[in-house]
């Protein structure tokens, strides 16, 4: 802990204002990009495509980093308010400097001096008399000095009165003032240093921002929703959008078009898609695996193993700061995003329109519990898919398709949809050709027989253009 604190609140307030202006500028930038995008939507060209793609990246970065800036600003504001409440300079534009040990020493000194000052020895009346010399320096000529005795007696009475009565009164009064100073030390100065120390330690902790964000989440579910949306946006942007096949895009469209879109696909996967903050979130559950799980509850589990494994591979290849660690049960998700979200494991349980996000600390669950459950109603987040959002579909591993084509020397294979349509059309054409052949050409090729089929002596083999009994 510091012994001396020197700080100018105005500097922090200026920083807070700069952060606010910075946030506003980011927002202005996003608004400007929106306006520009509406123009770009009417244009076409490679550069326009590239710019649109970059715009998506910018949006996601802005959404994610805005959280950090907002949290930082809020922390600075609350800290400055807290510190100003405890100790503030008389002149608001002055720098305050406090040395805790000096204040403590001063209090001790005052306490000691007060004790000494009021520790007067008791006065006892004396019977000794005063004399004054009225003649030569000889005791014979002395006379009793009653006037001086009266003065001394009066002084003695006053001192006795102070000792026995007023001393305690004034000492108590001084102690009250000392108590007020001690109270300021205990209730303002010590907390002031403790607060500074605590905030300093919080920021020194590499997990400071995640913890602060986490505290915000506990009180602000909307912020959590936005955060999840922004984080998922980043995940999607970091993956290779082109990996999504035409069929997967069509599937995503079909799912989204159903509104309440949980659907069971032919391969036994339960799929659920919603949009959070404009980001598409898709959850898949392997129903077969679920049936084999004796501990499965009635809730829908988030089967992220395959999905996040793909993301992990894609992001790992890009050297991104994302780290995904999928729990062995396929449910627990540990997410790290630039050190921001590493403070927790998130266990996400979507049920209907509600997603329960259970955070538990991964730093030290025993001594630093951060566990909390936040439930979100995402029904309002369900939106019709935008054409661009379909591009963000999370892809699944379909490398077998390309690998199969590559094995026969085709490096640029057709899409699955094109292949399927091609096969279907080809099949129809072939069948149509056979049918036409059988109807138009084949009858003309039949050689008429020379016998009457209704005759009792009709021999079907006799009209054959070859001898069926001939051994070749």
């Amino acid at each position, binding site marked *: *802990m*510091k012994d*001396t*604190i*020197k*700080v*100018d609140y105005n*500097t*922090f307030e*200026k*920083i807070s204002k*700069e952060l606010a202006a*910075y946030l506003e*500028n*980011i927002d*202005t*930038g996003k608004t*400007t*990009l929106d*306006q*520009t995008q509406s*123009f770009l939507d*009417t*244009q*076409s*060209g*490679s*550069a*326009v*495509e*590239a*710019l649109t793609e*970059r*715009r998506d*990246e*910018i949006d996601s*970065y*802005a959404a994610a*980093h805005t959280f*950090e*800036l907002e949290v*930082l600003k809020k922390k*600075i504001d609350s*800290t400055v308010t807290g*510190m100003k409440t405890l100790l503030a300079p008389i002149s608001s534009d002055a*720098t305050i*400097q406090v040395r805790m040990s000096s204040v403590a020493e001063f209090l001790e000194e005052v306490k000691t001096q007060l004790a000494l000052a009021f520790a007067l020895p008791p006065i006892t009346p004396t019977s000794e008399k005063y004399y004054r010399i009225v003649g030569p320096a000889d005791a014979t000529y002395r006379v009793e000095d009653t006037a001086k005795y009266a003065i001394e007696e009066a002084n003695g009475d006053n001192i006795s009165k102070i000792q026995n009565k007023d001393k305690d009164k004034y000492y108590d009064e001084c102690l009250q003032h000392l108590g007020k100073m001690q109270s300021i030390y205990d209730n303002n100065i010590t907390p002031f240093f403790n*607060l*500074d120390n605590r*905030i*300093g*330690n*919080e*920021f*020194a902790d590499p997990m400071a921002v995640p913890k602060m964000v986490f505290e915000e989440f506990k009180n602000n579910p909307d912020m959590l929703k936005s955060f999840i949306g922004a984080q998922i946006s980043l995940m999607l942007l970091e993956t290779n959008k082109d990996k999504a096949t035409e069929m997967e895009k069509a599937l995503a469209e079909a799912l989204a078009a159903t509104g309440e879109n949980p659907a069971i696909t032919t391969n036994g996967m339960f799929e659920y898609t919603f949009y959070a903050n404009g980001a598409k979130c898709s959850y898949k559950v392997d129903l077969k695996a679920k049936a084999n799980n004796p501990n499965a509850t009635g809730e829908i589990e988030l089967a992220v193993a395959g999905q996040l494994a793909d993301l992990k591979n894609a992001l790992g290849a*890009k*050297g*991104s*700061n994302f780290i995904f660690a999928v729990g062995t049960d396929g449910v627990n998700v540990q997410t790290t995003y*630039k050190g921001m979200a590493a403070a927790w494991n998130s266990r996400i349980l979507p049920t209907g329109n509600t997603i329960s996000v259970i955070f538990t600390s991964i730093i030290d669950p025993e001594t630093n519990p951060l566990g909390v459950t936040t439930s979100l109603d995402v029904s309002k987040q369900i939106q019709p898919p935008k054409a661009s959002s379909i591009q963000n579909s999370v892809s699944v591993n379909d490398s077998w398709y390309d690998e199969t084509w590559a094995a026969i020397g085709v490096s640029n294979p057709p899409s699955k949809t094109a292949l399927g349509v091609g096969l279907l059309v080809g099949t129809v054409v072939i069948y149509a050709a056979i049918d036409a052949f059988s109807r138009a050409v084949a009858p003309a090729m039949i050689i008429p027989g020379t016998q009457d089929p209704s005759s009792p002596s009709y021999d079907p083999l006799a009209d054959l253009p070859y001898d069926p009994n001939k051994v070749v």
Partner: protein
Amino acid sequence: MAGISQITIDWQTMYTQVDVVTIKVIPIYEKEKSTFNNYAGELDRYSSNFAERISAVLRELSSGDITNMVKELTHYSDGLHTTAMLSEETENHNVQSIKNNANSVLPN
């Protein structure tokens, strides 16, 4: 770029929009780094733990992801500028530049 058979750009509107982006976005980047660094330096003169830590955070802000994001904004506006000024023949080169810029500012 596969699938693009026609390039249509309204240059006049593009110029108008570029002005908007350039004016509003670039000053953010120019300002934020020096502003945060100045404050970080100023806070260094204080003896508070709080001041020291905030100073470090501000330095992080001026050199980390936030800056990258602002660079994104700047490159975007630069891209618009460049796109507006280049002819169709050189557009492919421009696209490549934009992508290179994107790669250079993506987080590592």
